């Protein structure tokens, strides 16, 4: 353990603080993870990368800042952004999932081509994994890619595809080897969303917005070289991405910012003439949540250190999505409960606070508990891979004697 803030770090903190003051006016009001980034967000993102506050450890040649991983500096950045209530960098599926996957498994040419514009917010990606018949059992997916000259012709349907309506590109799982066993017949393809034969139909969610979509493919022509990894390796590549998604979805820094926002709100809002903070039950919930937020933040520091040292993290690494998403949801719940009737106002109602964001978060976070591998699937993963417990037994074929009896 060495978390001492030497002079180097104090200087770094001062630098971050100065940035946040100098560039305050250029910050967008929110980052909004589910749509196309607005021009001001893209501008902000570029500023952040230039200063090393986004894409910090991604190599310079691919458009990142190129710093060595340093958990204290990362922590200082997130602390200062939180304290100043300033938005951090873009954390959409392209930045948080596709870029790390490419860094791990892409060819040099693919890295050169896609990472920079993705980081900059110029290219927006969507993730085409889930299908109507294949959610938790993703490997059963049926969207087909059949060979046609140098291309695949893709046919089928994806569902719950976030951002598909505004995305430029999709990374998509397609069954290209129909005769292989289910996990070995999938390829990881990438293609533009304006390729002929793609139809996107928005799906309105409980939040009232259309955060995700259905996507239909009819003879969509994808050159065979637009593949990450080899043919039939898509499941392996996707699992790399899903690992990154589990990391993104449980991000404890987001929880830290929320805790700070709720604290401030409970100090300012009143009921019966008393600050919300003066209610001992609400206050206790807040402190309890603070325990969990700090725990997950320190846990993140531990995992980061392990990753830098290339040590395996075992069960510690598998729990982040489950715990992090639950924590965020519980934070939103406290904000709503503390506000009471005001907490349920929405859609621009009079007296609505913060443009209804706590309700939006409370609902959307439930989506995140389900998406990216449901809480139950996470528990399967933790128990099977983390605790080495038995997998689900396969359905047993009736023994010959029983079969004979029933015949």
């Amino acid at each position, binding site marked *: 353990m060495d978390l001492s803030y030497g002079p180097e770090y104090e200087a770094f903190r001062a630098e971050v603080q100065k940035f946040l003051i100098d560039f305050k006016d250029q910050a967008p009001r929110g980052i909004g993870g589910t749509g196309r980034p607005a021009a001001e967000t893209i501008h902000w993102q570029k500023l952040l990368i230039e200063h090393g506050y986004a894409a910090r450890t991604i190599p310079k040649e691919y458009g990142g800042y190129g710093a060595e991983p340093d958990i204290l500096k990362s922590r200082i950045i997130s602390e200062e952004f939180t304290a100043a209530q300033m938005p951090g960098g873009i954390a959409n599926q392209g930045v948080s999932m596709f870029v790390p996957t490419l860094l791990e498994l892409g060819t040099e040419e693919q890295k050169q081509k896609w990472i920079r514009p993705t980081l900059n917010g110029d290219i927006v990606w969507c993730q085409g994994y889930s299908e109507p018949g294949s959610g938790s059992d993703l490997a059963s997916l049926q969207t087909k890619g059949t060979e046609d000259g140098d291309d695949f012709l893709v046919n089928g349907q994806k569902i719950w595809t976030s951002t598909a309506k505004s995305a430029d590109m999709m990374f998509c799982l397609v069954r290209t080897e129909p005769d292989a066993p289910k996990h070995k017949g999938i390829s990881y393809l990438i293609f533009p969303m304006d390729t002929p034969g793609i139809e996107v139909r928005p799906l309105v969610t409980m939040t009232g917005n259309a955060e995700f979509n259905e996507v239909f493919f009819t003879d969509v022509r994808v050159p065979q070289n637009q593949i990450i990894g080899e043919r039939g390796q898509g499941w392996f590549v996707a699992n790399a991405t899903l690992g990154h998604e589990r990391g993104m979805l449980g991000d404890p820094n987001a929880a830290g910012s929320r805790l700070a926002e709720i604290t401030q709100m409970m100090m300012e809002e009143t009921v019966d003439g008393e600050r919300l903070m003066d209610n001992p039950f609400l206050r206790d919930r807040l402190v309890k949540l603070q325990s969990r937020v700090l*725990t997950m933040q320190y846990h993140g520091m531990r995992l980061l250190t392990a990753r830098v040292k290339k040590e395996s993290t075992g069960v510690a690494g598998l729990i982040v999505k489950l715990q992090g998403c639950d924590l965020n949801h519980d934070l939103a719940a406290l904000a709503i409960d503390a506000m009471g009737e005001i907490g349920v106002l929405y859609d621009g109602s009079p007296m609505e606070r913060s443009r209804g964001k706590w309700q939006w978060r409370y609902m959307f976070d439930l989506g995140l508990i389900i998406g990216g591998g449901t809480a139950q699937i996470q528990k399967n993963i933790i128990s099977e891979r983390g605790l080495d417990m038995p997998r689900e037994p396969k359905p047993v074929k009736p023994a010959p004697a029983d079969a004979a009896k029933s015949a």
Partner: protein
Amino acid sequence: MEFALSEEQKMLQDSVGRYLETACSLDVVRGVAEKSGLQADDVWSGLIDLGVPSMMVPEAYGGMAFGMLEAALVSEVMGRHVAAVPFIGACVLGPLAIARGGSDALKEAWLPKIATGAIRVGVALSEHTGAREDAGITAEGDRLSGRSLFVIDGGMADIFVVADTQGGLHLIEAGAEGVETIALTSIDRTRSLSEIRLTKVVSQPLDGGEDVLASLIDAGRVLYAADTLGAGWAMIDKAVAYAKERKQFNRVIGSFQSVKHMCAEMAAELEPCRSLIWYAAYAQDALPDDARLTAGHAKSHLSEVGRFVARTSTEVHGGMGFTDLLGLHYWFKRIGVNRQILGGPERVREELAKLQGWAA
């Protein structure tokens, strides 16, 4: 710059853990618990050989001068093996109090003996985390009078570190005139808990007053939390192992998803707490601004997670978990006591709210 244990720290934890694994078997624990809950003498001697009582004693007095992170790592393995020996008071808080507040003469008199394990310290300060039953110690000149409850490691103590109601710290000898020790019986028979009654007992002052007292309370909170971390992981490991062995409906119960999910939930709640303990323990020595806050969070959060794990692991074991035969209850009870000592979670959280200006 890193958030990880050093090789030396891993080795320390490993060596104490491996020793306890064999020396502090369930039979040994049971032996102590069924007698009167003082200590397992052989285990205590073994820990002396490993240098555990000297951990926190400064080098000048024959100790190893370790920090709170090392103490927490050892506390964790003590919890893991429900070690029936004095540790938190005798080996950590006691020597810390004397090293921080004692005069040179006092340090010279006691620290070398603590380091060799010849002397055990009991620590009486619970009135500062929750005064009950009109208990409290008053100091008049060099004399102490009054009662202090829930004295940590008081049962076998040769000397006591005692906090008076003003927050002053003192040292007394257990054999001095006017000292009466009354054993309290808790659910956890692996560690002693006692009351002391003092009548004009001769004492030596420890300097540093409330600052040292506060640092001892924080240190104690981290250590009880670490004990729960160890005891909790032991309960998870036992649940997982049992679930892989026990069969019902012609399959191991560990293949039932609800059993798997109980185990996954325990691990998902408890494993991140390790990072909280490391941080809080490290903060005690290196990050003074965070020391109070994180010690309180470690104590209150591990109390909550520990309770969940203790209950859930017992359920995974079915009726067997409820029996005395299996002995799982020793861990259950240890976690139960850790929750209450030095402030239960509700009280600690309220302190944390005050500390941050959230409550008056």
